[in-house]
């Protein structure tokens, strides 16, 4: 069993962990931004209007991007 609180008790260790988490979440934001860009690009290549698929996918990609940015901000604030 790992006792993480004792590790986090140390100020420096907590800071390093926070920075590491923020870096990973920052990369995650970049990843979601790439997905959003790719879906926009693919919607230009192929558009399926009747089924509303293109719009739905674009909205989902945008929602995903917003969620990842929100998570980054949340981590910045609460960690």
């Amino acid at each position, binding site marked *: 069993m790992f006792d993480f609180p004792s590790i986090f008790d140390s100020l420096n260790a907590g800071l390093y962990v926070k920075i590491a988490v923020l870096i990973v979440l920052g990369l995650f934001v970049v990843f979601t931004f790439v997905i959003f860009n790719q879906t926009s690009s693919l919607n230009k290549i192929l558009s399926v209007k009747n*089924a509303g698929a293109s719009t739905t996918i674009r909205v989902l990609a945008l929602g995903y991007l917003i969620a990842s940015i929100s998570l980054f901000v949340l981590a910045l604030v609460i*960690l």
Partner: protein
Amino acid sequence: MPDVFVSDPRPDSATEAAVANNQKNLQQTDFTDAPVVPSTGKLGFLSTFCTNPDGVQFEHQEPDETVLLLMRKHHITNVRWIVISVFLSLLPLIVQLAQISLDVSFFVFPTPYVLVLTLSYYLLVFGYAFVSFITWFYNVGILTKKRLVDIDFSDIMYKNVATARLIDIVDVEYTQGGFLHSFFDYGDVFVQTEGIKPNFEFHAVPHPSIVVNMILIRMGRKEKKHV
């Protein structure tokens, strides 16, 4: 002295003109009257096979270019990533239940970290499912009155759009092997084009025999090949 070999006379300009004219006619022919598979209905959000779909547009589509067939991989090919996504979604719950039932704590994090890690985990799982879905959704084969279009998307970063005019297609065939392929009627369609132009491969598309027949009909050849 008799000639050992006499080559055929070179085609005169009239013959060349006739051949060129025939090719031009074939290029311009609109096989509208050819027996085409009746429409499968309105194109749905998750359609894998739709003839004469409405509302489908692709890059560089010509104004008078009607889409005759849109095809994607069969739904059954999505089962793997759906099962993995569901399992990954339930994994934290399983771990939680295991901790309660065994009365142990595998990991003890401060509350803010638990919140951030949990949200990150579920966003990652959603990302995996979403990327898998759009990879399936945007891997499309399109048959129009003039061309065959193959749109490929994979690994998030890679996308490729290839087209071939119907007159450049040399051969079309399909393979269908295995229990699942036969049971759900899906298979791989291979389209061979002239010379250095890339060949087309449509993997795991539904009703491959119909796809091959439709392409052959548009080419002006009514035949069926089954490998």
